[in-house]
C-alpha cells in the first residue's frame, strides 16, 4: 500500500456564486418547460404585437417593388455574444424572405467567424426555399475588422448598390448612427435591433422600427414562425415576473432595514 495515493472526487460549490447558479438553473428549467409546453399545446401561448417584427416582411416587399437589394448586418460583436447569435437567427428569416421574393440580399460582416456562419445561414435559407441556384457567395461579405473601416465599407455599399431595406441587428458601437443616417439618406426602410443601451437612442432617432433590448431575442424566437419555438416567450415572461418579485421584495426589505435579499443574492 505504500506510495499509493487515493484520489477522491470532490464537488465544490464556489462561494459567492451559488445564487447565480440557482437562478441560471431556474431560468433554464423555465425555458425548457415553456418550450415543451408549447410543443404540446402551441395555441395556449398568445403573443402581443411587436410592430417592428411585422415590418420585416413589408420592408422586404418594398425592396422587391423597387427592384433594389436588402441590406443586413449582424452587428459588430463576435460569435461569443448572444446578441450576434440571435441576429444570425433573424438573418435566417430575412434570407428566406429575400429568396421567396427573388430580391438580392447583401450581408455585411465585421468579424470573419460571423461572416462564415452568416454565409452558411443564407445558403441554408436559399436551399430551404428551393432557390439554391439563386444563392451567390458575393451576397455575404466580410468588410473589415476595423470598426470604422467596416462603417466606411457599409456607407460605400449604401450609395453604390442602394439597398431599399436595411436591417441592423446585433451589437453596435458608435457606427450605429453612421449606418442609420446614411440609410435615411438613400431612402431605405430601416429596422434596427440591439441590446446596446448606448446606441439605442440613435437607432430610435434614425430608424423606422427598432427592436429594443429583449425584443431582439423575442424576434429571434418569433421569426422562426414555429409556434413551438415562440413558446419560449412564456419563459421570458415568467423569468421577468420572478425578477420583478425579487426587486419588489428586496426594495421593501431594504426600506425596512433588512439586507436579506442582497445577502441571498451574494451567497
Amino acid at each position, binding site marked *: 500500500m505504500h506510495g499509493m495515493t487515493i484520489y477522491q472526487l470532490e464537488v465544490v460549490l464556489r462561494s459567492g456564486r451559488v445564487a447565480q447558479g440557482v437562478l441560471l438553473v431556474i431560468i433554464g428549467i423555465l425555458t425548457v418547460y415553456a418550450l415543451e409546453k408549447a410543443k404540446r399545446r402551441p395555441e395556449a401561448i398568445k403573443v402581443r404585437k411587436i410592430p417592428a417584427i411585422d415590418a420585416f416582411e413589408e420592408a422586404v416587399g418594398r425592396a422587391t417593388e423597387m427592384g433594389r437589394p436588402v441590406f443586413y448586418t449582424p452587428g459588430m460583436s*463576435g460569435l*461569443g455574444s448572444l446578441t450576434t447569435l440571435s441576429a444570425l437567427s433573424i438573418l435566417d428569416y430575412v434570407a428566406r424572405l429575400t429568396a421567396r421574393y427573388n430580391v438580392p440580399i447583401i450581408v455585411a460582416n465585421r468579424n470573419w467567424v460571423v461572416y462564415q456562419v452568416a454565409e452558411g445561414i443564407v445558403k441554408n435559407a436559399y436551399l430551404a426555399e428551393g432557390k439554391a441556384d439563386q444563392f451567390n457567395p458575393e451576397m455575404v461579405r466580410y468588410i473589415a475588422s476595423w470598426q470604422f473601416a467596416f462603417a*466606411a465599407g457599409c456607407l460605400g455599399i449604401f450609395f453604390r448598390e442602394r439597398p431599399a431595406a436595411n436591417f441592423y441587428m446585433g451589437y453596435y458601437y458608435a457606427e450605429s448612427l453612421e449606418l442609420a443616417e446614411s440609410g435615411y439618406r438613400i431612402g431605405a426602410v430601416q429596422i434596427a435591433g440591439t441590446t446596446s*443601451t448606448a446606441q439605442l437612442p440613435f437607432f430610435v432617432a434614425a430608424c423606422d422600427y427598432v427592436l429594443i433590448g429583449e425584443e431582439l431575442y423575442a424576434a429571434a424566437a418569433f421569426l422562426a414562425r414555429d409556434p413551438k419555438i415562440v413558446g419560449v416567450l412564456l419563459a421570458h415572461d415568467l423569468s421577468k415576473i420572478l425578477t420583478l418579485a425579487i426587486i419588489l421584495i428586496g426594495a421593501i*426589505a*431594504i426600506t425596512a*432595514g433588512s439586507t436579506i435579499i442582497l445577502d441571498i443574492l451574494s451567497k
Partner: protein
Amino acid sequence: MVNFTDILMVWISVFLVFCVFSYCYRENPLFRLAEHLFVGLSVGYGISYDLWYFKNYGYLPVVYQGRYDYLIWMLIGLGYYFFFSRRYFWLYRLPISIGIGYGTGMALRSVIRSDLIGQINTTIKLSLIGVDPLTTLNRFVIVFGTMLAVVFFIFTLELKGALSYIPKTGRYIILAALGASFGNTIMGRESLLIQRIQLMMGSKYFPWEAAGIGTVEAGSYAWIMTLICAAILLYMIYTDHVKSRRAAAEATATGN
C-alpha cells in the same frame, strides 16, 4: 524655415479628412478612394496580427515548449479553411460549434452575474426613504421606473383597459432614458469633430506633434489645402447642378 515634408504631411492629412467629409455631400470618387485605402490597409494590417497571434499562441508553444497537445487543437482549427471546400464543408462546423458552445456558456454566466443580479443589486441597495422628500421621490422613480420598464417587455400577457397604462408608462420611461442619452452624447461626438475642423483650419490648438502630423508651424499652412478642397467641392456641386439641369431639359424634351 519650415520643413517641407512637414507641410506635405499636413496637406495629406487635410486632404484625407476632406475625402471623408466629402461623403456628407454625396458618395464620390474621393470618398471611395479613402474608403478603399482604409479597407485595404486595415485588412493587410489584420493579416500581420493573425500571423503574430499564430506565432505566439500556436508556433512558439509547440516548438519551444514542446506542447504537442496543441497540435490536435490546431488541426481542429484548420477546419475554418474547409469553409471554402464543397466536399468537406461540414468540418468547419467543428471549430465553430466549439466556439459557439464556449461563448454561450461564458455569456450565460456573465449575463447572470453582471446584467441580471448586478442590476437587481444596485436597484435594491438603497432604502426607498431618503434623507429628504426629493431623494425619496427619486428612489421611488428609479425602483418603480425600472420595474415598469421591465413590464413593458412582457410579451404573452396583454394588459387591457386601465392596466394597459402600466406597460405604456414603462415605454415612456424607456423613451425618456433614450432621449436623455441622445442629448448627453452630443458633446463627446462634437469634440471629435471640433478637432478635425481645427486640423483643417490649421489651428495652433490642434495637437500636431502628438498626432504625428508635422509641427505647429507646418500646420499653419493647412489652409492652402483646405482652400483647394473647398474648390474641389464647389466644382463637384457645380457639375452636379449642370448635370441635373441637362437631365431635366432632356426629360421635358422627351416628354413633349
